């Protein structure tokens, strides 16, 4: 039973990583920007969800408001910060992004206070029994939410004009333009969608923990960088696999390696080892 619980716990965490990292990988795939501040948007999404829900009494409204506002913020970050840096070496945007992320975390601490906020309503405390195993309702909500979001993304990428335009722009921007694709618009829509995912992940984690804190983005921010590298940078499928795998490995690592190593360091051990063996990432296509 221990293994089932560990795997389940890992998948719950991994699905949270996946929803955050998928936005990062969309942005990296298109613009080669390591968008650390993504996790700042995730925290913002969590706060908006809690505050709106408490004000209106509707969780659905809270989640919707978070997605909309954070999506717009993502476009704003692109317009004000990254767009003027696209011609510069890639680490410039990375460092600027880290600076922005620190600013965001500090602003949340100043505006919302250091101790965090919770929903007024009670936490999803009950457990759901599935035959011999039982799972906490909040965990189940996280898993189901992630599956819904990621399926939605898959549909978006496969079935819609945006998906076609996105893939065309990633493969060959000049060619995409010659086919009449507005590549500038694709970038904005890309930031909007990625940020909507960040907000959704924030909402889910807010529900999962019934707690939002200014620093809740710290762990996902840097860890999801590791995940998108392991996933082969810009590869949506690889990112998913890497996120879930990392979630499970961490769950086991906490039990079996917890005496020697902090849980949050495991991702980076993997990151370093994988980069040394395969500088292009674990699930990258061969060049």
């Amino acid at each position, binding site marked *: 039973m221990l293994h089932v619980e560990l795997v389940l716990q890992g998948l719950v965490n991994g699905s949270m990583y996946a929803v955050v990292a998928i936005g990062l990988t969309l942005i990296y795939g298109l613009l*080669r920007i*390591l968008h650390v501040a993504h996790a700042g948007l995730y925290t913002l999404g969590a706060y908006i969800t809690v505050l709106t829900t408490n004000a209106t009494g509707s969780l659905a409204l809270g989640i919707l408001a978070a997605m909309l506002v954070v999506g717009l913020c993502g476009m704003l970050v692109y317009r004000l*910060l990254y767009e*003027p*840096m696209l011609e*510069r*070496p*890639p*680490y*410039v*945007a*990375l*460092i*600027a992004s*880290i*600076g*922005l*992320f*620190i*600013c965001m*975390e*500090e*602003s949340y601490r*100043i505006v919302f206070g250091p101790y965090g906020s919770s929903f007024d309503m009670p936490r999803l405390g009950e457990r759901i029994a599935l035959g011999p195993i039982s799972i906490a309702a909040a965990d189940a909500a996280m898993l189901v939410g992630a599956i819904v979001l990621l399926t939605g993304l898959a549909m978006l990428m496969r079935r819609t004009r945006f998906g076609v335009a996105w893939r065309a722009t990633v493969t060959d921007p000049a060619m995409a333009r010659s086919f009449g694709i507005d590549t500038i618009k694709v970038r904005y829509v890309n930031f909007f969608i990625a940020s909507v995912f960040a907000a959704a992940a924030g909402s889910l984690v807010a529900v999962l923990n019934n707690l939002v804190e200014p620093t809740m983005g710290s762990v996902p921010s*840097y860890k999801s*960088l*590791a995940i998108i*590298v392991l996933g082969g940078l810009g590869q949506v499928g690889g990112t998913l696999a890497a996120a879930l795998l990392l979630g499970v490995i961490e769950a086991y690592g906490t039990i079996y390696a*917890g*005496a*020697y*190593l*902090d*849980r*949050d*360091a*495991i*991702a*980076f*051990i993997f*990151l*370093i080892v994988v*980069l*040394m063996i395969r*500088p292009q990432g674990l699930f990258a296509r061969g060049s």
Partner: protein
Amino acid sequence: MGAYELTLVAVVSINVMLALGLNLITGFCGQVSLGHAAFFGTGAYAAALMAAAGWPLPVVLVAGGVTAAVLGLLVGFTSLRVREDFLAITTMGVGFVFVGFVRKQGWLGAEMGLTNIPDHGLGDIGFILMCLGLVAAMAAISAHIKRSWLGFGFAAVADDEATARTLGINVPLYKLAAFVIGTFLAGVAGAVYVYFTRFIIPGAFGFTVSISILSMVIVGGVGSLWGVIVAAVLLTLLPEFSRVINDYKLLLYGALIVLTMRFAPDGLAGIVTSLSRRLRRSET
């Protein structure tokens, strides 16, 4: 000078040493490192163990530097494999692994850290003089490297590795040299820190410390010696002079990083250079 001023001088000195070391790696040689605090921490832990074991201060300083440089050499090897933004996240990873590892090590005091560190025995003034002497020595080393052919080669490596190779420059060796020298300085700074606080915990060497050091280098002007020193001094002192700034210290660092990267990529040094050029032009 009162005790408070002495404390300030020591803290400023340690930060200048750290910034000078990172400036060698990231400024001179162009290798972005987001994990400088790990080398600072390695030096500090090595120094704490040595000092507690009764070794004299000069040996402890050198041991701190050498231990950090050994880790620096290892991390330097990763820079031969990955570049630019990949190197940045690899070094960031090294920082997280360092803290994650130390936190769980009983022999390093785990979360509680190490406390049984003996007094340096120099007296307050003696200690401050040692700090200033070390800063001067490190600034002199940096200045020499910048003027030497090694610095010239670093500049070529930072600019275009492949072309530097066609001119006979052994790029991997140059990168390793930058990492070894820069992390040695960080290790010495770690040893000084140990004698200064006489108490170290893993949290003192986390990611925010790496970013603080990086912001000094960036705000000063990547590669500029005096710019980095000025920025390290200012960014350390500003939070001390005002309670308000101290409360929002990280916000200040973050905002300065964003603004510098966005509007003044060459930092203070770049701003001064372009101002003086404009002045000279308006004079003629």
